[in-house]
């Protein structure tokens, strides 16, 4: 069965529009080796109080869309994770955003924050896994030159799965989804 899936997936040209999937661990920051590549990073808020850190480094300013999405399940209707790009040289967040951040900003760092409050909540269909997701809505972010971080957190303390999509270039590695099928597909 797995061989059949692999064969058909490889021959499906539409797959070229997919994100490179990665599984996140809240205890270990994920270092993105190729930050211009289009990624879908998946994780689970087990307690609702943890946050996920993704480290990026750009050799020049780089614009890319960022969004957080959760499975379109009734049980996750109130689960609206937020994200923030934090790093030196970024603008200071407003008070509401600063209060929502899961950790204090290091001195000299600013943040671009999306608290995922848009209404009605955007929905999209992901055709590779045939899934529906609620999205925070894609926001175009100009990442600064040098090091920065993406934080994903649950400002309302809700639990559940999420995905973080960002980047623009094709990166391959799509078959990683087959190595942990139940995590990515369900």
């Amino acid at each position, binding site marked *: 069965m797995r061989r059949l899936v692999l064969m058909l997936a490889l021959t499906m040209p539409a797959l070229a529009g997919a994100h490179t999937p990665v599984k996140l661990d809240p205890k270990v920051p994920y270092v993105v080796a190729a930050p211009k590549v289009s990624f879908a990073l998946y994780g689970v808020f087990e307690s609702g109080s943890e946050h996920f850190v993704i480290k990026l480094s750009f050799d020049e300013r780089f614009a890319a869309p960022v969004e957080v999405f959760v499975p379109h399940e009734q049980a996750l209707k109130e689960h609206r994770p937020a994200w923030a790009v934090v790093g030196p040289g970024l603008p200071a967040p407003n008070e509401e955003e600063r209060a929502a951040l899961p950790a204090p900003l290091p001195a000299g760092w600013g943040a671009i924050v999306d608290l995922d409050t848009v209404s009605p*909540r955007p929905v999209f269909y992901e055709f590779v896994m045939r*899934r529906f997701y609620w999205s925070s809505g894609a926001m175009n972010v100009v990442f600064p030159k040098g090091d920065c971080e993406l934080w994903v957190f649950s400002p309302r303390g809700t639990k559940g799965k999420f995905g973080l999509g960002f980047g623009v270039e094709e990166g391959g590695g799509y078959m990683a989804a087959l190595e942990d099928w139940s995590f990515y597909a369900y």
Partner: protein
Amino acid sequence: MRTSALVLGLLAGSALGQTVTAADATLASRFELGLPAEVTLVGLTAGARPELLFRPGEPGSRSRIRLAVGLFGGPEQLFLPVSLGYRACFRQGLTVQPLVGVGVELQHRFVADFPPVRSFGAYLEAGVAFAVAPRWTVGALLTTDVMFVGTPGFGFGPRAFVTVQL
């Protein structure tokens, strides 16, 4: 209804290089009703896909024309596929009867707050049926589909079924 069924049978029989004759059994005996239960493993849903099978050829022949309409529910979506295709049923009259099929499928996926997602493509199925009583079979199939019109995609899943010849 009877006329259209007869025309369908004649067309199908002709297309398969077979001839429908008056000597055949009654029209009703050409039909089989199937009630498969199925799980889709890409886009998790589960449900029923009732199917109507028509035998265009002589009794005991392999060919079936298949029409199926499914209704599936899952944690994220409601899934409604409509299929039309061909199924070959081998070893008719014996207990173990391998099956293979191919056809076209129109898929609809629904959630409350998003427009329906529609796709059109082809499906393949393969499995085995067991004759458990006169006119009754049970069995299992594996199915795959590739959608190439509308929203693309690839799917697969297992199906268990019971079929009765009318």
